[in-house]
């Protein structure tokens, strides 16, 4: 019992460590004072002024657009690649998966610099599209590594059974294989979206002047002082995701519960 209490306590301590900054930021979003170290009283004014701050809103728009499109394109390329890799022999498969690992294991700063050098070497203007390409590049591995395990679990036999029952190859793929690996594709997409949203370093090196994501905007503000609207926006984003996750979890739990009664 003592052991169990100690274990609980330890988990709570670590969670506190991980979530303390988040609680702090939510707190700061209601802080009347612009200082990050002084409490000036409670206010919700940052939440209203947020929607008048075009610079922040446009950074938000850029961030979400890049996150969505990079995750979407990476999901398509990654899923198709997974199917191909899964059917390969050992050696090419190992080589390809090794290459897939590079952007994940490599330092962000090296990935960012290398892409920047490539774009400049090709006289490709650093802009929205260069950031998008960079994000797709580091997102593809997350998709592949989410889809591959699902693909391995999927028995070849179900696909062959569909063919045997008269389905065309395309039909069999869309009606049998795809639904099977869909959870992997979805989690790959969500993971890619999250990674893109949270990225600063690679964007920092591949963006051109004039475009800003939330990350790069915050970075330029670090020295000057962060605008409190930024805390308000981040809190809103975080709470939205939190609520979505809770709802999603509720739903999957419910699904499981009904599954159980069916048995």
């Amino acid at each position, binding site marked *: 019992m003592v052991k169990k209490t100690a274990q609980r306590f*330890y988990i709570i301590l670590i969670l506190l460590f991980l979530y303390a900054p*988040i609680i702090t930021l939510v707190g700061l979003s209601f802080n009347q004072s612009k200082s990050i170290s002084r409490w000036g009283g409670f206010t919700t004014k940052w939440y209203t002024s947020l929607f008048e701050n075009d610079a922040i809103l446009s950074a938000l728009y850029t961030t979400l657009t890049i996150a969505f499109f990079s995750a979407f394109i990476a999901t398509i390329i990654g899923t198709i690649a997974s199917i191909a890799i899964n059917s390969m022999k050992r050696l090419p498969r190992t080589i390809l998966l090794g290459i897939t690992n590079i952007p994940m294991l490599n330092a962000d700063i090296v990935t960012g610099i*290398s892409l920047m050098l490539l774009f400049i070497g090709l006289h490709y203007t650093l802009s929205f599209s260069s950031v998008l390409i960079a994000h797709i590049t580091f997102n593809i591995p997350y998709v592949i590594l989410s889809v591959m395990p699902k693909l391995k679990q999927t028995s070849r036999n179900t696909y062959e059974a569909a063919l045997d029952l008269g389905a065309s190859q395309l039909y069999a793929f869309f009606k049998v294989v795809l639904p099977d690996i869909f959870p992997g594709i979805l989690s790959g997409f969500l993971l890619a979206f999250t990674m893109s949203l949270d990225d600063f370093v690679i964007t920092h*090196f591949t963006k051109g002047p004039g475009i800003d994501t939330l990350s790069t905007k915050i970075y330029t503000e670090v020295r000057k002082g962060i605008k409190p609207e930024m805390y308000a926006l981040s809190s809103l984003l975080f709470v939205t995701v939190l609520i979505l996750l809770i709802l999603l979890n509720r739903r999957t739990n419910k699904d499981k519960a009904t599954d159980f009664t069916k048995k």
Partner: protein
Amino acid sequence: MNNKRKKYLAFPYVLWMAAFIIIPLFMIIYYGLTNRNRQFTFENLTIIAEPSNLKALWLSLKLSTLSTILCLILAYPLASILTKIKMKNKSILVFIFILPMWMNFLLRTLAWQTLLDKNGVINTVLTFFHLPLINIINTPGAIILGMVYNFLPFMILPIYNTLSKIDSSVVDAARDLGANEFQTFLRITFPLSLPGVISGITMVFVPALTTFVISDILGGSKILLIGNVIEQEFKYANNWHTGSGLSLVLMVFILISMALVSKYDKESEGNIW
């Protein structure tokens, strides 16, 4: 579609990776080994020996090693407790550790300024309990804290994953053959979790070694890590050749960790953490 034709589906992916992973890496090598007049030179590499650069590299190695060790010490017990928890939906655990990423990483790091401030939350709590105050903001201590904070999930998740894959009957077997709990851990559980530990170590060590943001935000502007030096070469000095050369030096350490991973990670292809 038979396998022979299926593998051609990898074509767009192979093309993409070649264009945006492989060629860019060669760009770094090219810039790192040439000077502004496009002549071959080693001077971009040897510049690491300059005292200020050497100091930054040494500090980076020291801080990232320390924070990796701290992460391991904090994460292993946590992961092992998590595997023992009986829960219906275990995937929620992973969510709990990924969720903070939805709050911008720069802001989360910045929040530690507020928490660590002389009159900040932590010191207020410490004063309340009559404990000694901490004053580590703008010191290497704050940078270590920032590293541990940011990269801890990347240590927890791989260890948790390998631990939860260990067949409980193997642990039972060791107990059955006479091993006590500690011996079982030392000879069975820990060796079997080693792939997770190694992958956790690289996933913490590499970003910690190469960061320039955490030192920027929590170290004031006085403390320079090797990441800061490289970033400045690119963004302020506009000296891509020196920056690339220093990146190449940095990559030696990254390659060593990658080699370690691939050695221990033979068959786990297709698992992120």
